[in-house]
């Protein structure tokens, strides 16, 4: 037997982290949980409300339930639209990106540029860019005779937010796919040439299967970010016109900080959180499953 002294002093080093997590996450979350089961008549006096906030929220017949339902499907639709555009587009552009020579560095930097712009600048750029009177993009669309108006047309507003997200975050998918493609050994391409495989066959039988892992990560990251989208609609459309671009986070913000309706907001944010957690768990399971299957 190896005589190893039992020493758990390492746990002391974890304590500071626990302290930080306590103040940054646990206490705020418990505050939200606290609000979600209580009601108030103001003046800081709270009384027990049980699960009534949750019942209302999950019942589409109530006002708040209908509102939540709409925002949830709007957000899911937005995530789906972004994923359907960004993932294929990202893979396609990664396939086109140069593999060697001086062009590699330049093109990768150019691809990564949109991701480096701070969120409020992104919003402001697009807010001005899409104005139908002076914005280059908006005015050009109006100029060729399209009904384009971010503040009045729901379709314009929706399209604009999707385009912003595609512009902003497709680079992430490109870079991940590019890294995945670079990791495929040359022998696979050489073997495919010798086997007489067409370009499509190479893509479907070599590149796509080998990209599986990075694509799961890309889809997860893009889903999370689109599902919690806030800044772009906040700055560009303000959730409108009407409630056309009022996604979950925008709606939550309106209920919690606009209307100071703490009970509804707390219940909503907890359900929102659980949805996010569930999706994360599903992706995590898929990833570990792929890992276990080995050599993907």
């Amino acid at each position: 037997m190896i005589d190893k002294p039992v020493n758990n002093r390492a746990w002391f080093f974890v304590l500071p982290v626990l302290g930080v997590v306590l103040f940054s996450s646990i206490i705020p979350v418990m505050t939200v949980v606290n609000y979600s089961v209580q009601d108030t008549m103001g003046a800081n006096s709270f009384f027990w409300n049980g699960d009534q906030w949750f019942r209302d929220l999950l019942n589409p017949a109530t006002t708040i339930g209908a509102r939540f339902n709409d925002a949830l499907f709007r957000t899911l639709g937005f995530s789906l639209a972004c994923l359907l555009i960004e993932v294929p587009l990202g893979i396609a552009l990664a396939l086109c990106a140069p593999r060697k020579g001086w062009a590699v560095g330049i093109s990768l930097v150019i691809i990564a540029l949109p991701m480096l712009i701070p969120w409020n600048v992104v919003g402001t750029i697009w807010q001005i860019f899409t104005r139908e009177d002076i914005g280059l993009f908006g005015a050009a669309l109006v100029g060729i005779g399209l009904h384009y108006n971010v503040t009045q047309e729901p379709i314009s507003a929706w399209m604009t937010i999707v385009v912003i997200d595609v512009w902003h975050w497709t680079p992430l998918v490109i870079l991940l796919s590019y890294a995945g493609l670079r990791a495929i050994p040359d022998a696979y391409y050489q073997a495919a040439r010798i086997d007489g495989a067409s370009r499509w066959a190479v893509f479907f039988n070599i590149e796509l299967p080998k990209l599986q892992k990075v694509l799961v990560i890309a889809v997860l990251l893009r889903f999370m970010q689109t599902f919690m989208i806030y800044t772009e609609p906040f700055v560009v459309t303000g959730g409108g016109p009407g409630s056309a671009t009022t996604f979950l986070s925008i709606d939550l913000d309106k209920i919690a900080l606009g209307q100071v309706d703490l009970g509804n907001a707390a219940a909503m944010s907890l359900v929102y959180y659980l949805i996010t957690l569930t999706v994360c768990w599903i992706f995590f399971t898929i990833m570990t499953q792929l890992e276990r299957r080995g050599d993907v």
Partner: protein
Amino acid sequence: MTSITLDRIAHSYGGKPRLESDYQLKPIQHVWEQGFAYALLGPSGCGKTTLLNIISGLVIPSEGRLLFGDKDVTHLPTEQRNIAQVFQFPVIYDTMTVAENLAFPLKNRRLAKPVIDRRVAEIAKMLDLTADLNRRARGLTADAKQKISLGRGLVRSDVSAVLFDEPLTVIDPALKWELRSKLKSVHRALDLLMIYVTHDQTEALTFADKVVVMNDGRAVQIGAPADLFYRPEHTFVGYFIGSPGMNFMPAGVKGNRAEVAGFEVRLGEIYGDLSSDQSVQLGVRPEFVSVTSGPGLPAQVRRVVDLGRKRLAHVLLGNHPLVVRIPREMEGVGDVVNISIDPANTHVYVADVRVQGRAP
């Protein structure tokens, strides 16, 4: 099914070569004949994979012509060259079953389904893959995957050649023997031209009808395994083939006598005047130097190595180190023993190249 001709093929990766040392593959003239198994043997970086890739079209040679039969294919892309190649590491298509993997090269060439099925079944049987045909290729072991790669190389019956680039590197030693003899029997059954790249001399000598020994971008000798052993044309071949390699000693050669470190060694052939300014060496394999109780050259034993199958002694003849084969019972480090060199198996090398003497 044709022969492959290398017509002064040479390659330099850097573009325009000025010096001979700029070539990764120095000009080579050779004909690979249909139905034979060849091995390209040499240390890492000697240019053997470059030569293989030139034949398969993955590398376009900077000089010379490559002919398949009478057809010049030097600039044809890989997919138009009727070539199959098996790589060092198993290349399989993860998403397909074993059968689909084997059928892939045939399917891409739009063969009829019954033809494909028959051929796949035949190759799977040769490589013992029949039981796995409907399994996904992804979950198999490394050697099963490499068998699939081998199978994809062998499945096309119309290929001009099947090229192997160190295909058994990832295989366990025990399975190596099995796969190698399997390849050998497949070769006999399919009557294809096979070219096999390896740095393992046992692999080369057991697989091939003819071995091309390469060193530093040059094919130093092309010959049957026995030729390489009994008549190395270059000191590199003597040193690289055999275990341990050939003994080389600086010598002065006159007629059928060589003088090594003040001792006289009898040679099998008669040589003319070799007293040039280039180095003259006497070469003899350890197998042809023996310890004798009769008259011989006095050598001091420095080290005895027991290889199980045989025992070798490192001895000093004058001040030249030499490896000799010794009988089981002999011991005695530090002893001086008499050694005799078999004249019939001595060779004389001038500037590393063998000179042919006159028969006595």
